[in-house]
């Protein structure tokens, strides 16, 4: 039986990619993603992972090399963060539109300027509509498990889509914490070899990445949309199977002490853990509050979200990204739009905080919840509140 060992989450990601027996890793270093690719380079250099490690000259080329590698049927991994993800931006659409099952960990980082190497979700939100499956992890174990699940989901013939596993820069990537690495045999059972159905193969030539005139473009996009929505079924199946095999269960939306709560807080990523402690404290003090953690960001889990808030009266959403000049944080805005149609009379209060690596402490979450309740009662002239800004 393997036991938990204390390791840096970035190193654990490298180990997960080793267990997945990836064929190609193409990556460009960027803080705070570096430890992932450094560890992978080391695994390849030590012969512990038989893969091609491509130290490319930019993130644009990293993702482009991944396209080529995935298109010949190789199991392909990369990792990036912040500006790197933005430099990849146009290539991300190609990966999803061309149905190439690439797995990428995104070590979430704020966007410049001013330059910030620290974490928030600005990078992730900017690639929201790229057609990738996107999962937000809360702790190191979740990242490891979801990297393995990501390969399985991406390469499933019913899916064939790239998958991003998001983890918070530094707060998660640089954390040494207990990680249980599955055994190779178990992983091999769970994750069969990649069998891309229509690879670039001289014995059976195909043309990929055609030119789509107006008469056909809409059809290609709708096919892609249907495919991504239907991928949710497979994601659930894979998570279930993973749970059955490894004993750790994942769902698109997780509720923490939110049964019949009047007030709910919704968070994404590793700050959810701190929020859980705040909920514990507030509950122990007799408050009627609970927490919703959103794990599956794309395809968006409409039903699960509606189900999770069915009895709530106030929903407070914390975004770690800012949609400039818009309705507030992107997550809050999506939640509002998902719930508008359900006809529920639910007050939704948006907060934006934790930008550029700014911590939110347990007390900070208490403050957010209390202020959120206050706004739900007395209203606010603003579309959303920014948390922790010095006036």
């Amino acid at each position, binding site marked *: 039986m393997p036991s938990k060992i204390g390791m840096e989450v970035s190193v654990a990601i490298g180990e997960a990619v080793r267990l997945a*027996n990836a*064929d*190609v890793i*193409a990556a460009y270093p960027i803080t705070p993603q570096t430890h992932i690719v450094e560890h992978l380079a080391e695994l390849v250099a030590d012969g512990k992972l*038989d*893969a*091609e490690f*491509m*130290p*490319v*000259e*930019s993130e*644009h*080329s*990293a993702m*482009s*090399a*991944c*396209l*080529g*590698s*995935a*298109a*010949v*049927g*190789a199991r*392909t991994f990369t990792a990036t963060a912040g500006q790197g993800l933005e430099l990849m931006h*146009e*290539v991300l659409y*190609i990966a999803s539109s*061309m149905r190439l099952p690439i797995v990428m960990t995104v070590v979430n980082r704020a966007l410049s300027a001013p330059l910030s190497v620290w974490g928030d979700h600005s990078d992730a939100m900017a690639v929201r509509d790229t057609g990738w499956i996107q999962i937000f992890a809360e702790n190191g174990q979740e990242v490891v498990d979801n990297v393995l699940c990501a390969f399985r989901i991406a390469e499933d013939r019913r899916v064939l889509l790239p998958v991003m596993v998001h983890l918070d820069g530094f707060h998660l990537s640089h954390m040494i914490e207990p990680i249980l690495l599955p055994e190779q045999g178990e992983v091999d059972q769970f994750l069969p*070899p990649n069998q891309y159905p229509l690879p*670039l*193969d*001289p*014995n*059976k*030539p*195909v*043309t*990929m*990445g*055609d*030119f*789509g*005139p107006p008469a*056909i473009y809409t059809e*290609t996009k709708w096919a892609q949309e249907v495919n991504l929505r239907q991928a949710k079924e497979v994601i659930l199946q894979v998570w279930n199977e993973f749970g059955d095999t490894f004993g750790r269960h994942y769902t698109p939306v997780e509720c923490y002490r939110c049964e019949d709560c009047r007030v709910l807080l919704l968070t994404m990523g590793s700050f959810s853990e701190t929020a859980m402690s705040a909920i514990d404290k507030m509950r122990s003090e007799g408050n009627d509050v609970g927490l919703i953690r959103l794990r599956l960001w794309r395809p968006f889990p409409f039903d699960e979200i509606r189900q999770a808030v069915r009895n709530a009266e106030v929903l407070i959403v914390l975004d770690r990204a800012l949609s400039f000049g818009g309705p507030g944080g992107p997550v809050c805005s999506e939640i509002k739009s998902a719930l508008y149609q359900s006809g529920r009379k639910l007050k939704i209060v948006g907060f934006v905080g934790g930008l550029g690596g700014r911590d939110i402490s347990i007390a900070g979450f208490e403050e957010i919840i209390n202020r959120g309740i206050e706004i739900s009662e007395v209203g606010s002239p603003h579309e959303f509140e920014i948390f922790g800004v010095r006036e």
Partner: protein
Amino acid sequence: MAKKAIDVGRDLPPKIRQRHAVYAPRPVTTKENFAQGNRACVGCAEALAVRLVCKALGDNVIIAMATGCMEIVSSQLPYTSWRVPWIHTLFENTAAVASGFEAGLKAMSRKGRTRLENVKAVGMAGDGGTADIGLQALSGALERGHNFLYICFDNEAYMNTGIQRSSATPYGASTTTSPAGKVSIGQLTWKKNMPAIAVAHDIPYVATACPSYPLDLMDKVAKAVATDGPAYIHILSVCPTGWRCPTELSVRIGRLAVETGIFPLYEVENGQYKLNIDLPKLKPVTEYLSLQGRFRHLSDGVINKIQQRVTAEYAKLKEKAASSLVPAGSQKDS
């Protein structure tokens, strides 16, 4: 289409292959891996270049092509001109994509996950996709030493979007973004020397070619395929639309580019230069310029300036070839 199947030229003995004169054609495969029905402009020498390249590449290749004329004309849904595996993704990343095939196949082959062997990864792009927007990705892939071939089809401007200048547009050419006007001669910069940039990466094989010299072109492609490591071929491709010349002159103008010394045909093998067609006397550049509308506005003074530059550059190239000959010649023969 042809009834008789003919042997592939590259299998002929070297003595026969030494002659590159156009008027001595020799057996060439009739297989067209770049199929009929491409939608390139009438008289497009770039389409001709792609056709000839494909003949020399053979079947055991995977091609990545950049956005551009040849991509648009060959892959309009639901059809394809390609009879070899081919992928287009973006404009500026072709070399990176091709390096991705190479890495993927290498790893899978080592791990027994593919039966494919000796598949050549090929990247193809125009001059914009190579010398401008794709230069970084190309430089990275060349420097990383992938076993791949990169071919630049140079028609000297962004033709796909309507004849905008690129860094490969020659001095004095009028394009839509370097128009000749009352106070401008058109393009104010000299053509970027892409082959020299490729050579600077210390890769084993660099060559220039032109479809007006089809056998030379195919020989070079075959050589590049056989090269272990990065190879770069720069092919001048006459564009009747953008160069404003009659469609039937595409091949002739390409030949004039070589005969005037404006686009010399040479190879650089492991750093050693070799002029493939070394003319005793260059034709005056006016013979080339005067056939093209893009140079119509040029004054004698500007033409003279171009002539001087061409003569000087050609002399430099000859010098490199001459100095390469001495020490490397004996090594190569052994």
